[in-house]
């Protein structure tokens, strides 16, 4: 019953069917990939960072370094405590400030400030930083990450919203100045 022409016709339709599914697959892949990449795509514009108030300047006495916390600007309702981020505020001389990220520049563990020895120490791999954030010793390749800040009507604001990491080229992280 089957002639060669009929077989090739069926084979053609099979190929056409595979081709159609390929096209549909490609069309579906666009939204799927877009969905999967959305956390990274957001970075371009408008970005994750914004200006966040840390509180009144009176909380940060001259010559001292104090812990401050803020609620991350990008949040969801189910973030719980994880959206509360800590940072170190150093009032250098009553006029200039330095705001350091809590994350060690080595692998992101929370650094602690010790006013007695004037050092930030990391509990994970033993990184140490001087009071101006520059690297003192240990595995970190660089000084602490520093947020941009500005002062508005007696309040200290920082530009934050993204966890600082060593490989990040974002403008959130300024290069540390040399020893003050």
């Amino acid at each position, binding site marked *: 019953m089957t002639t060669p022409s009929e077989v090739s016709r069926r084979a053609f339709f099979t190929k056409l069917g595979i081709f159609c599914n390929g096209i549909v697959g490609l069309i579906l892949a666009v939204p799927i990939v877009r969905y999967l990449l959305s956390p*990274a795509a*957001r*970075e371009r514009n408008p970005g*994750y960072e914004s200006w966040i108030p840390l509180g009144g300047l009176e909380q940060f006495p001259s010559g001292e370094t104090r812990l401050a916390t803020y609620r991350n600007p990008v949040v969801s309702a189910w*973030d719980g405590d*994880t959206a509360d981020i800590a940072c170190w505020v150093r009032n250098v001389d009553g006029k200039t400030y330095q705001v350091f990220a809590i994350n060690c520049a080595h692998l992101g563990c929370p650094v602690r400030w010790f006013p007695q020895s004037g050092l930030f120490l990391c*509990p994970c791999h033993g990184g140490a930083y001087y009071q101006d954030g520059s690297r003192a010793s240990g595995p970190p*390749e660089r000084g602490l990450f520093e947020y941009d800040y500005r002062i508005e009507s007696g309040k200290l604001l920082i530009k934050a919203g993204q966890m600082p990491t*060593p490989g990040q080229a974002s403008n959130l992280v300024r290069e540390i100045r040399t020893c003050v």
Partner: protein
Amino acid sequence: MRLIESIGEWLDARLQIDATIRDTMQHRVPRKSASWFYVFGSAAFAVFLLQIVTGIMLALVYVPSAGEAWNSLQTLNHNVALGWFIRGLHGWGSDFMVAIVLIHMVQVFLFGAYKYPRELTWVVGVFLLIVTLGMAFTGQVLRFDQDAYWGLGIGASIASRVPVMGPSIVNLMLGGPIIAGATLSRFFALHVFVVPGLLIAFVAVHLLMVIKLGINEWPMPGRIVRKATYLKEYHELTQKDGMPFFPDAIWKDLFFSALIFLSIAACALYFGPFGPSGPPDPTIIQTAPRPDFFFLWLYAVLSFLPPSMETPALLIGPVVIILALLLLPFVFGEGEKSWRRRPLAVLTILLVAVSLGTFTRLAVYTPWSPVMDAWSSIPIPAEFLHNRSALERQGALIFQDKQCHNCHSLGDQGGKRGPALDAVAVRLTQDQLIRQVIQGGGNMPAYGKNLTPPETTALVAFLETLHPAGQSPARDASRAIALGSEAGAQPSTNP
């Protein structure tokens, strides 16, 4: 009995599966391979089944939400009947599974089982090791406590070092700009759907090949694997000196799996579940995050790598290790199987085992980490303060107050970050001590800006008393002469 038989026949007439099961279960294995050395693969599979069952049970209560996960673990531990035990089984099951997979891998390596024709079985096995470690890491994240939170931070910091793509990879990994709700949700999806799916698929392929190609024969020194003759030789061996897997060989696997289940249950019962440690609140910074047992070695390696080596080692190291494992059966696909004729293989295993063991041991007591509260909680032992002058005791006070004790030990008490100072005066002269304190160096921060000249003088005076009785402190031989000739102060003592 007749009823069961007739039901069985009715089912098989439709499923047509009886012959396949019979062939699979009764595949012939070489008599010597039915050994206690060949039980680890089946034990790993058994523990995996336990992990699936206990994992589903935990998912009945666990809430994969950053705000609630920690609370739901507390509920599991305290408010659900035997919830703590199921958590213990799952946690200890995870450790046992990684351990058994590693032992299985070592056995396969030493017995030459990766050689022709079982190269692909080994390659799939390497993927199984990677996904097993992936399960261990993502599972540690689901125990959403302080360790999990900062562990994710470490993961993100490592990922960010990838050139160009780094920051985007971090955002993809965290599901957003910070470690938060989206992060836990995606690690839940990974741990419960994606990685187990891969694991099941790889296990199926791995097992299929074990059955189709036959289990590795017991390696005999001098019996060489050759691609031309191996398959024929193996077939003859299983026919002449073999037996069916079921019922003749399987009993050792069954006994060993039962022993492993019992051990996991005993550990869960005796040691209880893992954590959770403190809540995942990043404003609580009084914490020393630490990974689970099988990642401790990495934790130690990361603190010993010099800064310049860090990024290359983190990015290239894993690629090199995985490539080496994948290429192994293709480079050494023929030849001797017996470890008695492969000294390099034995040495490699010993080297890896000793290295991993050493790093794990180091990570247990973290000598690189300052003891953060030594300055206020560990006093200087009394014998270092007896018969000291006022200046020297003032120096001892500064030693505590400036937190030298956090990094340096006295009488084996205090930090191990820097060298012990019990006999520092024998090693360094007064000038060298002053220089070291003020300028730092050799991984010690400089304290010049943090010490007044009188404080430095007192501190160095105390450090100069630190030498064993009967052994005098180091002295710069040229110092007296230099000072003498310059100032002309001591002409009478130099004849």
